[in-house]
């Protein structure tokens, strides 16, 4: 089983809650770090060094290996000016790529519209998990959201095939006219149509999947396995999105943050092993991000909401290395106690949309942004 099409594919892993940048990519050479993190600090001999100044948290060994192999880009100091420390708002800004207004369309929803302008493939973009992230929303765009990959289909318990066929046919006719009671009604009808059309394709994935990779039983591992299943089933999915929560480490960060990164790092490594074993990794890039980083000074057992954070781009086509500048921890350079962003997150979007996906990034973003050179040109 190998994927036939080699169109570029983007996998996004969203880490919800606000990941602590400073204990993910530890600035071990900077004395300010130890001043601000008396309890939570990771000492120099324990970090997994990336260079002479920064290193990954010791729970991230699998990612350190990927970095050493040149497959991981570390994107320093990502954010935007004027972050307000709200989970809600900051996640919304990442999703819509718009810090200035309350936009409704997501950056990947718009990208999906470019890939499939007539909505011909309802699984061009797939969310694995509950709900539908705003990042994937755009008017007229079809996105499949799969919470249980083994039970994705309407009226699956109707045993008589003839009856089920008739009923699904009725649904198709009832959902078809887009002149219901209003936009929400029309949206429901369209979603119903997508569900009918996408179900046949998605249902193939778990049946066709065979792998020697054993994923862990935690949620992020399961979701990345489902992402792998969909990618490997070769149904034309180009954007695959999933999420893992729990990064809001106000308290007891010393135990929770290493556990989370242990789970995430292992799951990411297993995912890539799975893809490589199927010779299906070369056309995939993964973006890992969180809505904000955390406060520079710890609060006694954890860290409060902050601003600048770190993102990772991973994959065989990524130019590994460190990109951008670690924001200064000097107290005169902080913004209300937070790291000031050194890289606009939309620069990352710009290179992913334009250089990786081969789409028009200016249609997704309001203007030019400086792009980190994470893809060879």
């Amino acid at each position, binding site marked *: 089983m190998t994927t036939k099409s080699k169109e570029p594919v983007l996998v996004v892993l969203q880490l919800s809650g606000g990941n602590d940048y400073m204990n993910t990519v530890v600035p071990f050479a900077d004395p300010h770090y130890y001043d601000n993190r008396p309890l939570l600090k990771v000492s120099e001999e324990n970090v997994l060094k990336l260079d002479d100044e920064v290193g990954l948290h010791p729970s991230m060994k699998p990612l350190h290996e990927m970095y050493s192999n040149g497959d991981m880009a570390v994107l320093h100091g990502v954010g935007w000016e004027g972050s307000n420390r709200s989970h809600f708002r900051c996640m919304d800004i990442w999703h819509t790529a718009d810090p200035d207004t309350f936009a409704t369309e997501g950056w990947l929803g718009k990208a999906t519209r470019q890939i499939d302008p007539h909505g011909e493939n309802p699984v061009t973009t797939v969310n694995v998990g509950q709900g539908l992230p705003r990042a994937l929303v755009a008017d007229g765009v079809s996105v499949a959201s799969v919470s249980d990959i083994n039970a994705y289909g309407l009226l699956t318990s109707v045993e008589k095939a003839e009856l089920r066929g*008739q009923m699904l046919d009725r649904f198709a006719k009832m959902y078809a006219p887009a002149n219901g009671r209003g936009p929400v009604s029309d949206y429901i009808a369209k979603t119903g149509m997508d569900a009918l059309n996408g179900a046949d394709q998605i249902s193939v994935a778990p049946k066709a999947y065979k792998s020697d990779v054993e994923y862990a039983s935690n949620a992020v591992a399961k979701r990345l396995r489902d992402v792998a299943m969909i990618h490997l089933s070769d149904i034309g999915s180009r954007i695959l999105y999933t999420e893992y929560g729990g990064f809001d480490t106000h308290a007891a960060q010393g135990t929770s943050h290493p556990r989370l990164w242990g789970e995430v790092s292992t799951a990411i490594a297993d995912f890539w092993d799975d893809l490589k074993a199927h010779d299906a990794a070369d056309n995939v890039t993964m973006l890992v991000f969180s809505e904000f980083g955390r406060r520079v000074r710890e609060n006694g057992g954890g860290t409060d909401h902050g601003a600048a954070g770190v993102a990772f781009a991973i994959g065989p086509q990524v130019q590994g290395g460190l990109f951008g500048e670690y924001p200064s921890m000097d107290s005169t350079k902080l913004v209300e106690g937070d790291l000031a962003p050194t890289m606009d997150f939309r620069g990352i979007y710009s290179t992913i949309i334009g250089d990786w996906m081969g789409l028009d990034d200016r249609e997704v973003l309001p203007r030019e942004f400086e792009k980190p050179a994470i893809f060879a040109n």
Partner: protein
Amino acid sequence: MPDHRDIALMAHLMRRAGFGATHDELDLLVAQGYEETLAQLLAPETQPDIDEALFFRYHPMAEYMHVSEHARTNWLFRMTNTKRPLQEKMVLFWHHVFATGVDKVESGHAMHTQISMFREHGMGNYRDLLVRLAQDPGMIYWLDNQDNHKRAPNENWGRELLELFSLGVGQYTEKDVYECARAFTGWTFVGKSRGIQLGQIPWQFEYRAEDHDETDKTFLGRTGNFGGEDIIDIVVRQPACARFIMRHLYSFFVEDEPEVPKWPTEPPKNPEAIDLLCQVFTDSDFEMEPVLRTLFSSDFFKEAEYKKVKNPAEVVVGALKLSGSFTGPDPSWGNLSTRPATMGQDILNPPSVEGWHTGGEWINSGALINRVNFVADHLRDTSNPGVDAMVRRIGNIGGSLTAAMFVERCLNELGLGTVDDETFQELVAQAELGGPIMYGTNGEFDKFSQRVGDMLALIAGTKEYQFG
């Protein structure tokens, strides 16, 4: 015979102020009238409490509520069988606003305690409710206030109290957040002993004076040695607080508002309604009961039929009520409690402290599939007592029905007054496929029964059924 319009209005009231009502219940309620029904809803103590002994008899371990599954099943059982539907609906409302998640709290008992507190006080005074919330051990742990110390303030609770539980973003400064946090230093709880499954001590609020910051705080323009209750007193008197909570109430009970982050820039859909509710709320010193009375008596409420997308709890409980399949002892109850999660609403475990995205955002392809399948599975099973009763009512007189009449009766049983023409035509076309609809003989009746079940399942898949 009650007027068709009266039945529709009563069905609307019971869907919004509760989780729907069966045809038989509606007949009784219409007979006693809208005002009397509303009076009963607003005075839950006048209605019998649920027989929880029945629940515990078949879930003996559930009494301890150690695991969240028990707390969730208990709540779902109450939503389905309560005689005090508005009380239970208000529990869900506060769970939406004060979203607390068991993934972090890791105690079914603490979650059950918080939910029970909403049940007891959710229709009372909002100011008092906020104080109880600030002292609720599950909430304290959820937002880390046990780590909010005099020497090391933790601002998680302080921030969310202002942003999500009372004022809304933009109504305070970062300094206010910090000062608010300081006022709640020393508000902690005791009893948490991780890893012990049995014999756990219930968590208890504890105020530790030695860990409380006694210096002055400057909060929303006022300065003083404020404690937590002082902060809440200042907060509830901000006009922004009434507007924020009343907009939540309107969005939950009347019609879907835009998502909360847009509220600072997008005006309410019905500003006059919000003004009216704010006035009643403020005049009554933040009592919820008069506000709910005003809301459910208003024209804007009565005219809001089908303007809301049902949340998953409403979908699941509504189907359970209609099918009558969650009333007596049944070992499968435990499985039911996770069903709303498959539709995007993991009860007792919201995705974050911001709660759920509602309205149209409940719908995506996976959630829609799970909504339709759950309702269809329950309504196709004609051995369910509620479905059997529907079959008998639809086929109560004569021996045959035209396809159009058959469809109309099925829609009526599910409380759907009207559907789009295209929808109706497709339903009729499906009904016609099975030939003439006859139920005069026993043999005919069995076939008729399954045709009703199949039609109800088909209706569950319409876009109209997703609204409530």
